[in-house]
């Protein structure tokens, strides 16, 4: 009879205790898979929202534009740049920005005019899918605009209402025109919610008297497996006269929160698993102490200390392996359920945003390799650490004392 078979029988011997131990480990593993998946989901959706609504993955500006967004600080020849980007496996869209005053009835507000290229913008962001009321821009309604949610409230406008825009055109003259609200956006992030004012690039040029040049190029990678930092370096080399930044630099806060999410998951794992460690420690200590005599006899007839140590470890490994398999079997569908259905938080929060980033009111889990592996691997490690003391206890038993132990 080998060690593994003996260990298996010992696990089976006190079946209730083993079941409780395995159950506790399974439960913790399962919950942690769910938790890790929910956290992944939260942060992925945050990332997606922030990146997919507005920022994209990389942006190109004229150096200094971000500090002082001036109407005249323009990128010229953007078509060439965009086709060069396309040749490098990237999709890009040009944007125009300007500041103006919007007025409707007795309300008015400062707005950030966003002149977008309708076709290209939809390839780099998903803002067009986030219309709450009315519809997105189209080529036919030249005077149609889409507003951020809070801005619409400030201006007390609804879909179909008219707006007056007043600003300073490129030539210094007064720019003003009448626009019609085509759509109002969902909450997508503080910046856009409060000041987002989307219009066609052609309308923007007409209003502001800007014949050529753009202010920003938004870029996404076609192949997401390419390292973003690598891409940034490459593009910086291709366009040395412009400022090329990736989203980590553009939104350092988001990048930091996402980095913290890793730590967050591990801290939570650690805390939950301390309880598991206690259960394992307690169970294995009990099982060692009630077998002191047996171990004494085993030592007396020639079993070495390391063999007893391995026996205790093998018994624990058997239990933790069963728990890992069960946690996988039950945890995966559990997390999957929450990935499909999510947790509806609309009752508690609506249009919640944090640091200018929008959160989805439906909190969905996101099963990733890490959200499954991290809880399971940590579970095994914790159990192996917890059983160290009982295993040493068994290994250092003195046969004489153990045999006469009561």
């Amino acid at each position, binding site marked *: *009879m*080998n060690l593994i078979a*003996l260990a298996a*029988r*010992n696990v*089976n*011997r006190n079946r209730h205790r083993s079941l409780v131990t395995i159950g506790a480990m399974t439960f913790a593993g399962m919950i942690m898979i769910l938790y890790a998946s929910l956290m992944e989901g939260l942060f992925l959706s945050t990332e997606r929202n922030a990146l997919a609504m507005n920022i994209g993955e990389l942006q190109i500006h004229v150096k200094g534009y971000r500090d002082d967004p001036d109407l005249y600080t323009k990128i010229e020849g953007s078509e060439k740049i965009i086709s060069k980007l396309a040749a490098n496996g990237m999709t890009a869209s040009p944007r125009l920005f300007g500041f103006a005053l919007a007025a409707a009835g007795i309300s008015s507000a400062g707005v950030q005019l966003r002149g977008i290229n309708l076709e290209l913008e939809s390839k780099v962001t998903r803002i067009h899918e986030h219309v709450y009321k009315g519809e997105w821009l189209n080529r036919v309604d030249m005077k149609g605009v889409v507003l951020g949610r809070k801005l619409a409230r400030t201006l007390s406008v609804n879909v179909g209402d008219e707006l007056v825009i007043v600003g300073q055109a490129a030539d210094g003259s007064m720019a003003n025109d009448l626009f019609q609200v085509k759509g109002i956006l969902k909450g997508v992030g503080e910046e856009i919610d409060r000041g987002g004012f989307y219009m066609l690039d052609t309308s923007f040029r007409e209003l502001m008297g800007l014949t050529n040049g753009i202010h920003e190029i938004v870029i996404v990678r076609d192949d997401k497996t390419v390292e973003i930092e690598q891409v940034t370096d490459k593009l910086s080399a291709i366009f040395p006269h412009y400022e090329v930044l990736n989203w980590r630099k553009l939104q350092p806060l988001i990048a930091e929160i996402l980095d913290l999410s890793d730590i967050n998951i591990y801290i939570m794992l650690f805390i939950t698993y301390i309880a598991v460690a206690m259960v394992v420690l307690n169970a294995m200590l009990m099982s060692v102490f009630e077998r002191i*005599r*047996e171990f004494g*006899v*085993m*030592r*007396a*007839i*020639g*079993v*070495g*200390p390391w*063999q007893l140590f391995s026996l205790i470890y093998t018994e624990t490994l058997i239990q933790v392996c069963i728990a890992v398999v069960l946690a996988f079997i039950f945890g995966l569908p559990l997390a999957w359920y929450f990935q499909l259905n999510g947790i509806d938080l609309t009752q508690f929060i609506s249009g919640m945003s944090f640091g200018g980033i929008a959160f989805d009111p439906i909190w969905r889990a996101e099963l990733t390799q890490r959200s499954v592996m991290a809880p399971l691997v940590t579970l095994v490690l914790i159990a192996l650490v917890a059983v160290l003391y009982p295993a040493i206890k068994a290994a250092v038993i003195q*046969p*004489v004392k153990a*045999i006469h132990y009561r």
Partner: protein
Amino acid sequence: MAGEVHTNNPAIKDIVRLESVSKVYQQGQLEVRAVDNVSLEIDTGDFCALCGPSGSGKTTVLNMIGGLDVPSSGQVWLENHNLARLSRSELASIRRDRIGFVFQAYNLIPVMTAYENAEFVLRLQGVPESECHEQVMMILDEVGLKGMEHRRPDEMSGGQQQRVAIARAIVTRPAIVLADEPTANVDSATADALLDLMQKLNQEDGVSFLFSTHDQRVMDRARRLIRLRDGRIESDEARR
């Protein structure tokens, strides 16, 4: 531990030799001399009993011979080994390869069958399963457990369990079997049967035995009877 070093060498007359062995236990403030300056030799092939009142030091002597306990002074020799010179793991190997232990009770590993218990030490020695089989079946037959190979300890009587322990002790062909009150927990008929068995193994297979006992029947059958009192040898008589 290499097997060939420990063959039952008839050239070694004494399997066990104790030279002025003492064992002192500290019981709180009190010093207890469990074994007090005992010198003793045990011949190959002997069937020897240690007797004496409770607390006279029988178990302590057996434990020191088996390398389970260390003398406070004096030396214990087993075959050619001075046990004090051996490391823990070397002692474990000596116990595994050269000594058969039979304790008063609870000798067996509860989750193993009679067969697996009897086979256990052989497997520890690294004997392949296929080679074990024949030997184990033969020994179990010899100790009268034919047909009970698949019973777990809790499915056997105390006497049957002791038989398994004896089978386990002798299946490895040890230099000596150390048995600490092997008959104390069984009824007298069973005790007689166990003694018959051990006597037979001694006479037919030449296995050396050293018992500790209170049991008059064991003493009656012993070829040599050593009486201990207060840790000292009170008398040492050869019989028959």
